[in-house]
């Protein structure tokens, strides 16, 4: 790439689909600010052993690798592990890390729920009483003559118990249809607890434990189920109890949501226990007047990644972007503070911030970042800390250099807030209208398009191209996380986008006044997709594995995405991945995941980077399931 404006423009067009992103990528290039795309280029070539999953760096006998071409090179690690075993162990490792990330996030929310019930927290309260009571009933907790706090305490303790090993059962798996549960029992993948499966995964990948790739991968499915129907679901439900179950709401998206004349605060990361308090504190009259005193017209809280999705779903706050936007937001030169908790925060984010006046504030003891200002966030002093952080951002406003600020002109409108409850309500209280539309063929089926950004794919191209293709083919799309941000930027999360849908889906969306692409929340909120599928299946009287529903992660990067993909598949929903997982070094593992699993959970993985071809695979799978249902 040459160092001239034309080359920067061309490079920006290669890197991202969205014009506002391109604009700031150009700015970053011309100002010499390093981003993930630059780092990916510097990493070329990336090690083939690693990409194929046949590098094992687990113990001190190694590191070992397998010759993927012939038996003349090494075909076993020092311990004797074959390519099949090394690939399977690596995959289970990645998956367990992803499940742990979701579940540890979930645990923190449950702990705040407990502390709130005991009156120990500052700023938090029980918001959704109805959901609290419904969940209490599921656990067999008596709700009569008890205060919300008393009920919440029992619910939180019941949930926390499920992280341990005594109970050996996860309550929310009972939300799955009986047929699906029988399938889990039959193959021994019914999850027993959250932490137990993750710890057992770590045990199983130690040298000399499991040597059978099939057995290891079945445990991977069980671990993923403990995330989807356990840790992630508890994160979603506890957040709903504390902050409210989302209802349809409108907002705006892309880097244009940043303001020239306001204090811009980006909340970045995952857990709403932080971002909710930041939002609450930003309404404090004293802080607002301090903002005015510092020459700003207000405080502009915008979201980045999943914590943004949490606030968007419940409060309609604007979304600045997804994973690959974190550096771009700073490169606008307009961000006073980026407040982070954990997951998907580039370790180099403080280096990016050091190119501008932006202050990065880390808040979790689990996720300290060199160069960041550390403000430990504790439930008992949450609101005070949130105010302190906002004050710090306000006082940084005068340091903004207007000559270096560039904010894209126009943000795009979007709709969000489609929790399972909200969708059911929009349909009139039962899924019958949706089921009828599917049976009649007006809607062929549904696709959960989820997952991250990855600089290996032009940012948002995979998501947007696939989703446009799906709605055109009368497939309703459900989204979470970065995928939803991508489609938001492309204007697909609006009721008007129904005009891009096929002639079956379009009138259904128009009649209900909903977009053809429904934003269901953050990445832990993929649990909402499971609940939606479970409720539809139960209403019809089949298993989730029988539904014409498919998942896709066109631009995934994270271990969490592996866990999500696996719990979709383990729940009977096939998944198409746009980025190859590290399994191609083992023919047997490929065959198991892309073929043999169909005989176990009636769902498989597929790998297809071309979004149009991915849509073909999804449609074929939906038709296969429709045919089996006789519709």
């Amino acid at each position: 790439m040459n160092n001239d404006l034309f080359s920067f423009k061309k490079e920006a067009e290669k890197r991202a689909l969205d014009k506002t992103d391109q604009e700031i990528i150009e700015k970053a290039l011309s100002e010499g600010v390093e981003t993930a795309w630059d780092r990916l280029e510097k990493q070329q070539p990336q090690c083939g052993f690693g990409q194929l999953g046949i590098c094992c760096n687990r113990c001190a006998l190694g590191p070992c690798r397998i010759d993927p071409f012939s038996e003349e090179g090494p075909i076993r690690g020092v311990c004797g592990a074959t390519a099949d075993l090394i690939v399977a162990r690596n995959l289970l490792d990645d998956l367990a890390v992803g499940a742990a990330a979701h579940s540890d996030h979930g645990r923190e929310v449950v702990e705040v729920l407990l502390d709130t019930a005991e009156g120990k927290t500052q700023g938090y309260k029980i918001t959704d009483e109805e959901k609290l009571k419904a969940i209490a009933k599921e656990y067999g907790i008596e709700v009569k003559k008890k205060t919300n706090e008393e009920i919440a305490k029992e619910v939180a303790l019941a949930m926390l118990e499920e992280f341990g090993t005594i109970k050996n059962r996860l309550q929310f798996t009972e939300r799955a249809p009986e047929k699906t549960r029988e399938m889990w029992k039959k193959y021994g993948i019914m999850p027993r607890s959250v932490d137990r499966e993750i710890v057992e995964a770590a045990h199983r990948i130690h040298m000399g434990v499991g040597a059978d790739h099939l057995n290891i991968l079945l445990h991977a499915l069980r671990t993923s189920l403990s995330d989807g129907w356990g840790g992630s679901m508890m994160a979603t439900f506890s957040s709903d109890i504390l902050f409210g179950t989302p209802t349809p709401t409108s907002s705006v998206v892309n880097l244009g949501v940043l303001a020239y004349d306001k204090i811009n605060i980006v909340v970045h990361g995952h857990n709403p226990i932080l971002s909710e308090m930041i939002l609450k504190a930003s309404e404090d009259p004293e802080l607002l007047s301090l903002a005015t005193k510092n020459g700003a017209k207000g405080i502009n809280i915008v979201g980045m990644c999943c914590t943004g999705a949490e606030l968007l779903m419940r409060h309609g706050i604007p979304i600045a972007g997804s994973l690959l936007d974190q550096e771009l937001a700073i490169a606008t030169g307009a961000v006073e503070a980026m407040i982070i908790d954990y997951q998907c925060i580039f370790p180099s984010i403080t280096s990016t911030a050091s190119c501008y006046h932006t202050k990065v504030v880390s808040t979790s003891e689990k996720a300290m970042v060199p160069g960041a200002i550390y403000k430990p966030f504790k439930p008992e002093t949450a609101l005070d800390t949130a105010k302190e952080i906002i004050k710090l951002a306000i006082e940084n406003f005068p340091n903004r250099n207007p000559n270096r600020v560039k904010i894209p002109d126009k943000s795009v409108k979007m709709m969000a807030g489609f929790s399972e409850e909200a969708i059911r309500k929009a349909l009139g209280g039962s899924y019958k209208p949706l089921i009828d539309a599917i049976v009649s063929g007006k809607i062929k089926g549904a696709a959960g398009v989820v997952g991250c950004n990855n600089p290996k794919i032009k940012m948002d191209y995979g998501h947007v191209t696939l989703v446009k293709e799906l709605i055109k083919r009368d497939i309703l799309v459900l989204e979470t996380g970065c995928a939803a941000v991508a489609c938001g930027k492309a204007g697909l999360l609006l009721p008007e986008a129904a005009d891009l849908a096929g002639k079956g889906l379009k009138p259904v969306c128009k009649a209900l006044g909903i977009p053809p692409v429904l934003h269901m929340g953050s990445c832990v909120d993929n649990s909402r997709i499971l609940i939606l599928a479970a409720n539809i299946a139960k209403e019809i009287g089949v298993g989730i594995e029988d539904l014409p529903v498919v998942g896709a992660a066109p631009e995934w990067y994270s271990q969490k995405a592996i866990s999500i993909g696996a719990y979709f598949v383990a729940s009977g929903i096939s998944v198409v991945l746009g980025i190859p997982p590290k399994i191609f070094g083992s023919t047997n593992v490929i065959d198991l995941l892309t073929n043999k699993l169909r005989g176990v959970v009636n769902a498989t993985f597929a790998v297809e980077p071309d979004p149009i071809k991915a849509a073909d695979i999804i449609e074929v799978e939906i038709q296969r399931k429709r045919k089996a249902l006789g519709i």
Partner: protein
Amino acid sequence: MKGVLVRPERCIGCRHCEVACALEHSQSKDLFIMLREIPLSEPRIHVEVGINFLTFPNRCRHCDPAPCMQVCPTNALERDEATGSVVVNYNKCISCTACAIACPFGVIQFKEVYQVKLKREVNAKCDNCMDRQLEGRVPACVEACKTGALEFGEINELIRVSRKDFTVRMTKSQGAEVEVPKIPENIKAFRGVLEKLASEGLFKED
């Protein structure tokens, strides 16, 4: 004639050869010490990405006659008769880069080397691991390569394999169905995925 033949279809871009090369040419020849050496030993073999994420380990071919030797004004480049290698007498090198201009493969790099006491950069190209060869060992890069992308031996013997592959390819139209060189199905599938990934985005060709 002995030498290193590259089988590019077997290179998976792990860069293990680069690490082994840097290690071999370091002062300590110890992985854990070499990273603290000044000057830092750097690889003389280069694994870079071409199209569709495919890689090629590029290394001095030790030509004979060697264009670099022919243009060197100080005779800093010499032929080692025992191994046929083109080697640099670092202290005679004046860093004029004439050799790099003449080199058809772009493998000459100018670096500081511990053998030169003054702080200047000289032609630090591949020496074919001459010392190892004299001890009857294969070059470090070849030893490190676990996929058979780099092979050392009697060149005509190594070429014989390629020739046989070529013969099969040329006779394929007459009924031979064997694909050569044989690449495992899973690797072909993986490369197919990479090719698609390269068709849009950062690695799209201009």
